[in-house]
C-alpha cells in the first residue's frame, strides 16, 4: 500500500476497519468528528458491520458493551467531556472483562474547556476515572502513523487480555495530517470472540455479570483482574527511548509532547547538552522498569506534559526517590514550541550543573 496523507482521526478509522472492527458507536464532539464521519462513510454500509451515531456518549459506550458481549470487535471515540460520561460504562466493561477500544482525542479542560490539545486526561485514563479497582490499557501515540499502528494493536490487546483499551490522543494528533502506511488488509472474515453471547445454541446458557451479594465473590473478581493486570505489565509495557545511553538529563514525555520534546532535545544536543528522551507508549502499564533502569545512569529527570503534572507522579513512583524529577507543564491547550521546551531543558541542565560536550 502506498503512503497516503491522512489525518489522525481518519487513520484511526482506517486502522480500525483493517483490524476487523465491525461496530462503531459514537457521538459527535470536536476534535474527533472526522473519525465518526470516517466510520459513517466507510463502515455504515459495509456488510456485517454497523455504525450508529448514538444519542449520547453514555448510550454509545453501552452499545459498545452490547456488541462486545456479542463477541465482535467494537470501537467508540470521543473527547474529554464525552469520555467522562463513559466512565461508568468503562468500569462495567473492565468488570465484565469485555474487550473494546475507546479513543479519547482529548481537549482542554476542566468543564467545557477548549478544543485545543492537552494531556489533561492522563489521570482519568490511567487511574480509572470510573468507580472500583480496575485498569485499562492506555496507548499514547505521537504520530499519525503510530495512531494507525496502535489502533490495530489496541484491538489485539483488547481481545488477548479481555480488557478495554484506551487510545489517548489529543486534538492536534486528530487534526494533523501526515503520510501514513497501513500494514494490514481488511480481514475477509470478521473475528468472533469465544465466550460471546449469541444464544445458547448447542451449549448451556450462560451469563455475563458483575453484581453479587457475596463480597468474597467480588473480591475474587478483583484478584483475578489484577492477576491479569500483572501479566499485562510484564508483557505489554512499551517505551521508546532515544539518546538515553549517554544522557545526563532524561526528559520523560508522551504523545504529542514527546514530539515537541524531541525537537527540543535535538537542539540541546546540537548545543552539546547530553539530553535523552523516554517516551512511554503504554501509559498503563507504565514503563516503571525502564525509568528505574535509566536512573542507574543518571539521576536527572525532567517530565514535560501538556497539563498541570500528572504522569510526573508515575515517574516519581517508578523512581521511588532514586532520581531528581523536575516538571514543566502547560495546561489548557497551549502548545509549547520545541524552542520553549529547549529553554526549559537547558535551564534545568545548567542549574543541575551537568556537563557540556564541546
Amino acid at each position, binding site marked *: 500500500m502506498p503512503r497516503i*496523507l491522512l489525518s489522525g482521526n481518519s487513520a484511526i478509522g482506517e486502522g480500525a476497519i483493517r483490524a476487523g472492527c465491525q461496530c462503531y458507536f459514537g457521538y459527535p464532539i*470536536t476534535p474527533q468528528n472526522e473519525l465518526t464521519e470516517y466510520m459513517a462513510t466507510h463502515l455504515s454500509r459495509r456488510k456485517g458491520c454497523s455504525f450508529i451515531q448514538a444519542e449520547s456518549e453514555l448510550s454509545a459506550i453501552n452499545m459498545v458493551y452490547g456488541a462486545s458481549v456479542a463477541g465482535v470487535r467494537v470501537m467508540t471515540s470521543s473527547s474529554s467531556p464525552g469520555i467522562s460520561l463513559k466512565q461508568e460504562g468503562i468500569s462495567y466493561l473492565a468488570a465484565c472483562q469485555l474487550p473494546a477500544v475507546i479513543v479519547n482525542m482529548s481537549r482542554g479542560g476542566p468543564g467545557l474547556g477548549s478544543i485545543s490539545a492537552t494531556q489533561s486526561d492522563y489521570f482519568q485514563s490511567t487511574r480509572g476515572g470510573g468507580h472500583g479497582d480496575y485498569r485499562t490499557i492506555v496507548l499514547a501515540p505521537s504520530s499519525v502513523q503510530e495512531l494507525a499502528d496502535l489502533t490495530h494493536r489496541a484491538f489485539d490487546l483488547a481481545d488477548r487480555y479481555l480488557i478495554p483499551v484506551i487510545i489517548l490522543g489529543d486534538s492536534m494528533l486528530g*487534526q494533523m495530517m*501526515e503520510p501514513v502506511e497501513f500494514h494490514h488488509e481488511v480481514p475477509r472474515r470478521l473475528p468472533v470472540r469465544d465466550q460471546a453471547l449469541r444464544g445458547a445454541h448447542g451449549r448451556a446458557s450462560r451469563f455475563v455479570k458483575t453484581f453479587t451479594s457475596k463480597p468474597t465473590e467480588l473480591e475474587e473478581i478483583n484478584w483475578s483482574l489484577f492477576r491479569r493486570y500483572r501479566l499485562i505489565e510484564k508483557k505489554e509495557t512499551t517505551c521508546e527511548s532515544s539518546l538515553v545511553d549517554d544522557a545526563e538529563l532524561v526528559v520523560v514525555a508522551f504523545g504529542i509532547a514527546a*514530539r515537541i520534546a*524531541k525537537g527540543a532535545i535535538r537542539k540541546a544536543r546540537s548545543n552539546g547538552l547530553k539530553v535523552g528522551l523516554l517516551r512511554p507508549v503504554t501509559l498503563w502499564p507504565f514503563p516503571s522498569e525502564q525509568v528505574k533502569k535509566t536512573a542507574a545512569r543518571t539521576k536527572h529527570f525532567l517530565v514535560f506534559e501538556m497539563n498541570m503534572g500528572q504522569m510526573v507522579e508515575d515517574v516519581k513512583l517508578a523512581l521511588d526517590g532514586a532520581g531528581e524529577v523536575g516538571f514543566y507543564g502547560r495546561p489548557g491547550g497551549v502548545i509549547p514550541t*520545541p524552542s520553549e521546551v529547549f529553554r526549559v531543558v537547558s535551564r534545568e541542565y545548567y542549574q543541575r550543573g551537568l556537563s557540556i560536550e564541546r
Partner: protein
Amino acid sequence: MLVKMIFAGFGGQGVLSMGLNLAQAAMLEGKHVTYLPAYGAEMRGGTANCTVAISDEEIASPVASAPEFIVAMNQPSQVGFQHHLQSGGLLFVNSSLVEAKIVRGDIELVEVPASRIAEEMGNPRCANMVMLGAFTKKTNLVCFATLITGLESTLQSKKKLLEVNKEALKTGYDFCGAEP
C-alpha cells in the same frame, strides 16, 4: 532542513486545499511533512488557516510559531500573521484583496494578484491555485510536476475541475517566473 509555512484567508478562499496540495506533493517527493488545519471555535465562516511543515527529518511540532513563509489571501490574515514571520521570511499576499502594509523591515513581500488573475481566467474560485503556483515557483519547496501529479490523483474523478486547477497553478507559476 525544516521549513514551515502558514496559508491564511477567508473561509471560502480554499486556503486549506492550498496547504493540503503542497503537503501531498512534499509527501510524494519523500519528504517528512505535516499538515495542520486551524480549528476555530467549532464554527464555519470567518477566517481559516493551515500550517504545513516540510523537512528531511522527523518533524517535532506541526505548529509554526515562526514560519518561513506566510500566504495571506485576505487583509485580516496579513495583519494577524505578519509579525509571526521569521526574519528573512517571505510574505505572499493576494494583492487583489490585500493592501500590503509591511510593518517590518526584515521580511520580504511577494505580491500576487491571485483573485484578479483567477477572475481573468474566468474561474474566480481558483485564486488559491494561482497563489499556490506562484508560491511553488518562488519557494521551490516541491517540483511543479509533483504538484500536478498530486492534483491528478486527488481530482481523478473530476476531470473538469482538474483542468481548471492545473491551468490556474500554471498561470500562477508563470506569473512569478515572469518577474525579474
